């Protein structure tokens, strides 16, 4: 059997006395595109952030391509281990989080240059290719402050891709956008889906999830309630909680 690209085993996360993740098991194959849906506060962001250890899991295991991510290491060894693995799974944030003091091109090249050892020329060649891909080649020298929200998010996706990650993590990347800017970002993600880059996508856009992803997971109160192919999950949910959630969100 093939090793899953991302695997979660009994993942638990507690904030103080709040149990946010209560034993999540999940497996994403190489090239698979998984959407994570669920009500606000159900723990979707925390799950995603536990995969790249922006949140430290309280319990359970996170695996990336056969390597234990939350390894049992201490201090500097742990830091080095985590920094190395994070390069292989890039995250795109709801709030873009572009570096405002760097140009678009510098946003794309700093990671590959400082972390992957690419030369400036190599990193810029890679950067140009990616900017073309997201349709922003002419913005290479602009600062992020000069871009629209949709453009910012496309740059953020390009910045993540510049690291050539094994997995892309998307956390509600269109939620902060004006409605008319959502499509341009979705279009970029559809392109990535067509290339079969492994993706974990937290989204509240059911139509997008149905169209683009090949597996959908419905979460509520820190647990996986139900999962399956999106067509099946959305048209014929088994669990009452899934049904009531979808009733609210499918109308859109």
């Amino acid at each position, binding site marked *: 059997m093939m090793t899953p690209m991302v695997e979660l085993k009994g993942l638990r996360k507690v904030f103080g006395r709040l149990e946010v993740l209560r034993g999540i098991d999940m497996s994403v194959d190489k090239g698979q595109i998984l959407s994570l849906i669920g009500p606000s506060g159900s723990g979707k962001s925390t799950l995603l952030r536990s995969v*790249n250890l*922006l949140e430290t899991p309280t319990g359970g295991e996170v695996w990336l391509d056969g390597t234990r991510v939350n390894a049992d290491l201490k201090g500097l060894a742990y*830091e*080095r281990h985590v*920094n*190395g693995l*994070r*390069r292989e799974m*890039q*995250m795109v*944030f709801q*709030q873009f*989080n*572009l*570096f*405002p*003091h760097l140009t678009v091109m510098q946003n794309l090249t*700093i*990671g590959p240059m*400082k*972390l992957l050892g690419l030369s400036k020329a190599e990193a810029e060649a890679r950067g140009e290719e990616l900017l073309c891909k997201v349709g922003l080649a002419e913005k290479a020298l602009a*600062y*992020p*402050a*000069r871009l629209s929200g949709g453009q910012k998010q496309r740059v953020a996706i390009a*910045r*993540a891709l510049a*690291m050539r990650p094994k997995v892309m993590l998307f956390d509600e990347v269109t939620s902060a956008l004006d409605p008319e800017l959502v499509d341009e970002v979705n279009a970029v993600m559809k392109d990535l889906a067509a290339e079969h880059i492994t993706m974990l996508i937290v989204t509240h856009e059911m139509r997008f999830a149905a169209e683009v992803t090949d597996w959908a997971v419905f979460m509520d109160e820190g647990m996986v309630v139900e999962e399956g192919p999106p067509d099946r999950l959305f048209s014929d949910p088994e669990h009452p909680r899934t049904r009531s959630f979808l009733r609210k969100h499918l109308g859109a």
Partner: protein
Amino acid sequence: MNLDFSVVPPFAGALAIGALWTILITALAGAISLIVGIGLALARIYAPGWIRALLAVPVFIILGTPLLLQLFLVYYGLSQLGLRLPAFFTGVVGLGLHYAVYNADILRAAILSVEQGQYEAGRALGFGRGATLRHFVLPQALYRALPQIGNNILVLLKDSVLVSAIGIMELVLSAQLAISRTFRPFEFYISVAAIFYLINLALEWALARITRRTEAMR
């Protein structure tokens, strides 16, 4: 009252050298105030409690006593105890540390004002803690703090006259030497004021230039 500025040109060379010392002292002390200021700001945010407690002592002394007294204490006081530090070194470091404390306050607030998302973006790319601070958080904090730090450097320029009290031949002391020969205080002090004003203007111009470059980022 008869003013006669023709007494000044014969001392132009001495005044120019004095002005260069003033500029050099301001530049070096300014650099120290920035670098130590960054270190202090980082320590106050990230260092363990006992280091912060230790640092609070010199900070308390620097904030609570006059700069002139601090210079006297280090220069004359230590020399009485047998530690003779060069006057230039004492003056530059004394000025620099004094303003480092003020810069640290500004920088601390600026570092804390950088959004958590910036730090997370750096870490998520794969940068370590220190590298994330260095590449993403600190530069943005510096840009934000620039106007206030610039102000501090302008005040530092004026305070640099204090080092004349421990015998450094900066601009004012050079003028006093000329006055003791010519007995024309008015002409020389006016000239020195004009030179200070010019240096001030140049510094303001440089700061405005840097600020303008950062405007594209906002």
